């Protein structure tokens, strides 16, 4: 067996400073420093606060990752970094750090797409991705349905959100219900104690919408419907059944996500569905996907929650795949591109 490449990945597209180290498809370290607590009181990620935190966290997180992996940085064969999409100033810190590493180690640099990295991370847990495979990526920043064949060459976008990202809807509804930021984990926790009693709308599922937006998502109408429902209760002077609202809202989001993903699988004749992104950590989404996919004859792969949220391991995993498939490294003048299209997996 040949020597598998030791790859270090850097992720700074939002509020997590992630450094991952992999050897081939073996995860050696996944160090993450989060500035989420600093953003909580603003109810969302503040770009300048995130960028400052990335600068402070970079070297300590690098050191921690190398220690955990039991390697010296000089052992690293290649450096991968999220070059987009994401917050411009935040991406820039990670890209500059990756270049400094590549320069200092005299090793190749791979600027990779954040969304493709969310897909690649599953290889660390469940082995090589089947080709083709369908990927449902859901987080605070993105909601996409992609067909993936060779991840190092590109992805085929089938659908995406036309307004809010799924995770954004979780944040907004959590705020409405007086739950802390980020909303996802809190809704999940509270919903576990509630009943699905309210039939909230499923965005873009009417027959007319399906003609134009068969695999697209919309969560803005759902968020408004929840707000109206809560306000009506308050106006009537009745207590808001927070757990029931959370459970019903969560059910509506998961229902649309799983329904459209399985419809896409059927349409393309694909038998494997990968789910990634922060919202993939949601327990109801995982359970519903597994149950309905089994009935549809589709296999489901979901990385463990810690690998679903933004991290450096996913970037390292995609970088290792680039090395393994002999892709051409990026140049040292690689730009950070906040709106990097999902179709560009290596820049």
């Amino acid at each position, binding site marked *: 067996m040949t020597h598998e490449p030791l790859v270090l990945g850097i992720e700074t597209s939002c509020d997590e400073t992630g450094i991952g180290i992999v050897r081939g498809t073996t995860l050696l370290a996944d160090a993450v420093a989060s500035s989420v607590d600093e953003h909580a*009181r*603003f*109810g*969302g990620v*503040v770009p*300048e*606060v995130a*960028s*400052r935190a*990335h*600068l402070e966290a*970079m*070297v300590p997180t*690098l*050191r921690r990752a190398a220690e955990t992996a039991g390697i010296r*940085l*000089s052992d690293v064969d290649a450096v991968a970094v999220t070059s987009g999409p994401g917050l*411009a*100033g935040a991406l*820039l*810190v990670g*890209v*500059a*750090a990756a*270049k*400094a*590493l*590549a*320069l*200092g*180690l*005299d090793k190749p640099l791979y600027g990779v797409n954040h969304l493709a990295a969310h897909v690649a991370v599953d290889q660390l847990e469940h082995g090589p991705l089947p080709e083709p495979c369908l990927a449902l990526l859901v987080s605070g920043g993105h909601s996409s349905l992609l067909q993936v064949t060779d991840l190092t060459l590109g992805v085929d976008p089938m659908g995406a959100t036309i307004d809010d990202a799924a995770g954004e809807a979780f944040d907004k509804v959590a*705020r*409405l219900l007086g739950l802390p930021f980020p909303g996802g984990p809190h809704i999940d926790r509270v919903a576990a104690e509630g009943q699905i009693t309210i039939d909230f709308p499923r965005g873009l599922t009417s027959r007319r919408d399906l003609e134009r937006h068969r695999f697209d998502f919309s969560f803005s109408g759902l968020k*408004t419907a929840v*707000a*109206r429902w809560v*306000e009506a209760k308050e106006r009537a002077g009745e207590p808001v059944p927070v757990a029931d609202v959370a459970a019903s809202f969560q059910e509506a989001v998961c229902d649309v996500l799983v329904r459209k993903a399985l419809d896409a699988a059927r349409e393309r004749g694909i038998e494997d569905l990968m789910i990634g992104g922060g919202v993939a950590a949601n327990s109801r989404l995982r359970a519903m996907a597994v149950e309905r996919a089994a009935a549809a004859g589709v296999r489901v792969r979901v990385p463990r929650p810690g690998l679903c949220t933004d991290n450096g391991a996913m970037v390292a995993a995609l970088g290792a795949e680039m090395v393994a498939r002999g892709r051409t490294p990026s*140049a*040292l*003048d*690689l*730009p*950070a591109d906040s709106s990097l299209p999902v179709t560009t997996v290596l820049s």
Partner: protein
Amino acid sequence: MLLAFDTATPLVTVAVANGSDVLAESVAVTPMKHGEQLAPQIEAVLAEAGVHRTALTAIAVGVGPGPFTGLRVGLVTARTLGHVLDVPVHGVCSLDVLAVEAVATGTVSGDFAVATDARRKEVYTARYDGTGVRRRGPEVLRPLDAATDLPVVGEGARLYPDAFGHAVAPIRPSAGWLARAVAESRVELLGPEPLYLRRPDAVAPGPVRPVS
């Protein structure tokens, strides 16, 4: 062997020096492209000087004040490179570098000020004595609040002639002078911490607005 760079202005500047002897120096042509330009410029300057990266013994970096995004590119590069090469990283106030050059090249004699562009119609400014020692600042001020008849070094004097009547060279910090200033102990060495001088723009959200 010292690698020096500054990203606290729109233009990236990089130099490599052996003691006070600057072996190679470059200044970017295109403004506001710190992220794209810094690493290739470091590579090019090292190549031009014939210095291998492993021969570096220290890094000096301008810590601003200056526009935040560029500043962070310089600082994260310096810290990461220092970490991987296992060499010390010295921070230097970017205004001090301008002051050292002004004193050494004789464009000032006696007290003077440095002012650079802080955007939003403000300047980053500091006051120095005739030997180049900082006596006040750095701080961020509106030009009229920093107005002076003293000679003023830096881009701020060109931008706000009403406040700064006596503009003198240099206009931008040079990495070559940063390297010389460090080699000759003419500046205070700081940690590689950014001098932001401003808090992030962020406001806590108000109460949830009704939709109906």
